[in-house]
């Protein structure tokens, strides 16, 4: 079963009369899930009627801890009924169903880490997720058409195979060795691009056009939509939302290691590559909400290790996107504890900050 979690009050508050369009589209998603042999339930966390089947009371939609508690209770009730909770799909961005804001375990400038990990964990040990979870976000604008288009993408791909194929890998030049170790999971030697010499002005749209796997290992900034390369002490703009205007990326699976690559808070479509990719009908986007870490050469650690495992799970084991990220995080934790005996601050931050945008129950057909 896929549990669809959102807030009726927050959706109505933001979208007004368009709430009914959203509600209709969410129900259409349920129909698509059913056709894909997946039961579902819509839970409005602040609506008594939708919680009645579970004999639970509404919670405050502004309190992520209460929402987590609600999901945990629903999970227990389903288990008691011998029903499986396969996926959790959060509908809405931070103003609809808030990210948890956890203390930053790494020594850097980020005060906290917006994360969905607690929603994906069955207990208070929130570093290790045990649920397949994804989020269909909205953007800053009060126009519901963005979120409706994302729901349409999910509906479409529950019935159809992506027509995208092959891959595109783009890396800061200083991380070439490390990036190739990730890319090798989804590609051969071809279609690997380094910045420099690549910049957003010479980025060839054919590199991403029609590509299934799109991997980026570039710098990012909290207040900019751009991703940056690096050669020595030069940090050129390597890729930005305008590059996607010239490329068809529908049906793609995107993984980025860029710092703030999945930061959507207070962002509109052209303020964040994550939102631009989703608007352009990417099936799934995985990235970090804050500063992300990785090695400059193999062996893969942190974000690189999440990337290797996520892409491998999607491609080689045909896991759903939500399961792929969940298993990648579990693998990272086991691998790093095995290598060094513990999870340091950077490992912990990696586990928390990588999020999935898209329907977690989708997979490659």
């Amino acid at each position, binding site marked *: 079963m896929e549990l669809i979690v959102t807030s009726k009050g927050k959706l109505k508050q933001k979208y007004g009369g368009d709430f009914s369009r959203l509600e209709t589209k969410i129900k259409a998603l349920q129909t698509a899930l059913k056709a894909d042999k997946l039961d579902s339930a819509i839970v409005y966390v602040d609506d008594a009627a939708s919680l009645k089947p579970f004999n639970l009371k509404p919670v405050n939609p502004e309190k992520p801890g209460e929402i987590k508690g609600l999901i945990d209770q629903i999970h227990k009730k389903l288990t008691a009924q011998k029903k499986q909770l396969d996926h959790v799909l959060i509908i809405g961005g931070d103003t609809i169903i808030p990210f948890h804001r956890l203390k930053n375990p790494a*020594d*850097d400038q980020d005060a906290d880490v917006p994360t969905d990990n607690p929603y994906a964990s069955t207990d208070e040990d929130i570093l290790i997720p045990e649920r397949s979870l994804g989020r269909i976000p909205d953007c800053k604008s009060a126009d519901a058409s963005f979120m409706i288009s994302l729901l349409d993408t999910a509906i479409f791909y529950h019935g159809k195979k992506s027509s995208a194929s092959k891959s595109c890998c783009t890396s800061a030049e200083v991380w070439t060795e490390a990036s190739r170790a990730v890319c090798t999971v989804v590609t051969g030697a071809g279609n690997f691009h380094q910045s420099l010499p690549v910049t957003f002005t010479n980025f060839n749209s054919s590199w991403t056009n029609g590509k299934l796997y799109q991997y980026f290992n570039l710098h990012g900034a909290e207040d900019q939509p751009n991703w*940056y390369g690096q050669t020595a002490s030069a940090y050129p703009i390597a890729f930005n939302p305008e590059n996607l205007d010239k490329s068809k990326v529908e049906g793609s699976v995107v993984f980025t290691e860029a*710092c703030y690559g999945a930061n959507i808070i207070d962002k509109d479509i052209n303020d964040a590559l994550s939102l631009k990719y989703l608007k352009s009908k990417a099936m799934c986007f995985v990235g970090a909400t804050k500063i992300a870490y990785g090695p400059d050469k193999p062996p893969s650690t942190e974000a690189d290790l999440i990337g290797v495992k996520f892409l491998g799970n999607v491609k080689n084991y045909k896991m759903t996107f939500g399961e792929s990220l969940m298993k990648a995080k579990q693998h990272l934790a086991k691998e790093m504890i095995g290598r060094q*005996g513990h*999870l*340091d601050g950077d490992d912990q931050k990696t586990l928390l900050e990588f999020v999935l945008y898209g329907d977690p129950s989708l997979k490659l057909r």
Partner: protein
Amino acid sequence: MAVPKELIDKVKKEMAEGSPEMADVEPTVDIKELSMASTTTKKLGIEKLEAKKVYTFTFKKTVTAEGGAKLPIVSRVTTDEDGNVIKKTGN
């Protein structure tokens, strides 16, 4: 117990060689004894290992990217008590 100066100098030298942009950065040094909560190892189905003392050297600077964006750059080297490098990472 303070981190040996020879180790600090060794890490700085290696950092400057591998990442010249950090050559002028003085690292902060953190000494920690790290272990995992048994709830976490149990959840992962693995053995809990004994706590280890590690030294973490953090190099930070802010660089200016094309277009004027300020990028925080963090590079970190973690060693064991004997100075063996456990991990090098960066953003």
